[in-house]
């Protein structure tokens, strides 16, 4: 089999002089990513959202949790640019601070899931055999229960929901997909000659996992982690909507929207629900765009978009 023409193409011409800076695969991926305008814009949008949420105290003096009896469901005013909600809490402050929670939930659930998924996926994919079949059976079983049903059942057993618990429950119920993806990637890597090569020089398992597997699996890992985060933000809002999310007074975008479960607010107070709705939409959209950009950057052959 001869190397196919695509690959020849990506090879730098032999006769290019040395001044051509050599690029690591990561830099190359970055370059490809940078060429995806939508993804780059999304990075900036997401960064902007993160910054805005981080510096929330600088953008408003109001306390997002403070209820004010005299300000129930008021429309926008100078003091409260997005009006107030049914408890007289300031929507603008809640929007800013709520983003923190939504993003923290998204990020930490993602990292937690990643930790579980990468560990189990690596074990299964690297060691195969018994370890693999045990872990795979576990994922099969987890996948058998609809995610939300499992989460809700657990929540029914617990009666207080805190952010930490929320994140934990999400992570503990959603690791199987990632585990499978990582395992799959590992299994295909395992058969690759460079891994055999590393074993041939006597590299330890640890070294093989960290130096050879993870860097080569980083593409799918990062891409899936990104997309997962988007999903978690949506899940948080969905659970808030049905009353199982993080409860008021803690502001989250999800519980802000859930106020719009009422025609009165839907109709008369668009300023109360459109901003958090848009915030979720934009955040999730940018995360998805970034995820997609990353996918294309790490795996230029994939045509998915």
């Amino acid at each position, binding site marked *: *089999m*001869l190397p196919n023409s695509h690959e020849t193409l990506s090879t730098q*011409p032999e006769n290019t002089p040395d001044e051509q800076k050599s690029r690591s695969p990561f830099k190359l991926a970055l370059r490809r990513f940078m060429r995806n305008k939508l993804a780059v814009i999304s990075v900036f949008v997401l960064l902007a959202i993160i910054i805005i949420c981080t510096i929330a105290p600088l953008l408003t003096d109001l306390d997002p949790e403070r209820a004010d009896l005299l300000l129930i469901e008021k429309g926008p005013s100078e003091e409260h640019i997005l009006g107030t909600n049914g408890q007289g809490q300031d929507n603008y402050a809640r929007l800013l601070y709520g983003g923190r929670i939504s993003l923290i939930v998204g990020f930490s659930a993602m990292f937690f899931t990643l930790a579980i998924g990468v560990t189990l996926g690596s074990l299964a994919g690297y060691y195969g055999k018994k370890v693999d079949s045990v872990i795979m059976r576990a994922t099969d079983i987890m996948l058998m229960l609809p995610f939300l049903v499992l989460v809700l059942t657990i929540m029914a057993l617990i009666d207080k929901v805190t952010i930490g618990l929320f994140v934990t429950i999400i992570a503990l119920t959603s690791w199987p997909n990632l585990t499978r993806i990582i395992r799959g990637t590992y299994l295909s890597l395992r058969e690759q000659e460079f891994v055999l090569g590393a074993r041939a020089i006597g590299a330890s398992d640890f070294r093989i996992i960290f130096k050879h597997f993870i860097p080569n699996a980083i593409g799918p890992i990062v891409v899936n982690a990104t997309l997962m985060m988007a999903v978690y933000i949506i899940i948080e809002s969905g659970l808030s909507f049905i009353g199982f999310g993080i409860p008021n007074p803690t502001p989250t975008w999800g519980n802000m929207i859930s106020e719009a479960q009422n025609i009165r607010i839907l109709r008369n107070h668009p300023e109360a629900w459109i901003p958090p709705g848009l915030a979720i939409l934009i955040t999730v959209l940018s995360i998805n765009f970034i995820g997609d950009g990353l996918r294309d950057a790490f795996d230029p052959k994939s045509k998915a978009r």
Partner: protein
Amino acid sequence: MTQKPVLSVEGLKTYFYLDDNLVAKAVDGVDFTVNPGETLAIVGESGSGKSITSLSIMQLINKPGKIVDGTINLEEENLLDKTGKQMTKIRGNDIAMIFQEPMTALNPVYTIGNQIMETIIKHKKLSKKNAREKAIELLNFVGFPRAKDVMNEYPHQLSGGMRQRAMIAMSISCEPKLLIADEPSTALDVTIQAQILDLLADMKKELNMAILLITHDLGVVAEYADRVLVMYGGQIVEETSVEQIFEDTKHPYTTGLLNSLPSLEKDMTRLGAIKGTVPPAHNFPKGCRFSTRCPHVMDRCYTANPELLEIGSDHKVRCYLYE
């Protein structure tokens, strides 16, 4: 040479328009003719434009590729003037093609029989039953003793050699005037390769087809071809009969190729490698495309690309050495 050629290609240019405004000139001005009953071989290293030439003839070039210039005459008609619909009547019927990878060239979800019959029904307008009989006949013809069973088997149930036979059966089902075989044996073991190539040679005789045999194996050329085109960098660098190519090699590239070939017959300690590698199609050197690797390079080679010179009867070379 009194016969009218089956196929004559003139000035064919097929370019790929890549990102970053790069243009890969995969095929860049290729002329040749194929006569009835003749096997014309195209040899060249990977990336020299062999496959693109053949796909251009079939008009199977996909985006971002485009045939930008030239004519491709099948007997009298210029294929480039045909509509997509007209081409479907020609493909598989007048010109058939087989590909390098027998593993992936057959649709995995349909039986061999189905895929062969499909072609027959399409072009011969036979009934299903007749098409079936014909397909079984073809399979027998290409050396399947159990043709009937194979009809109902799926590609994955056959070995590489068998699949390639099935491909051949499919391609000759409409007795094409021209068969394009793009590295039909490269992926196969030598013993199987010999079977397949001999089969092709037999078919050719039987059906009096012309074959355009694409390969990078000079041995295959020596054994099966009548005439040879050597391609480099999307252009023909030497064209002649098979005897001359091995005995009166002109172009330094062809010489290089021959020298780098380890041989069963001769013993040699060192192979005469060509230095460097094939330049990518989007970044050819300015002058002669072989100039970067040529042992006889001269100053003028860097500035202008030589024309294909006729240096004898039936011998053309693209090199300033023979001007």
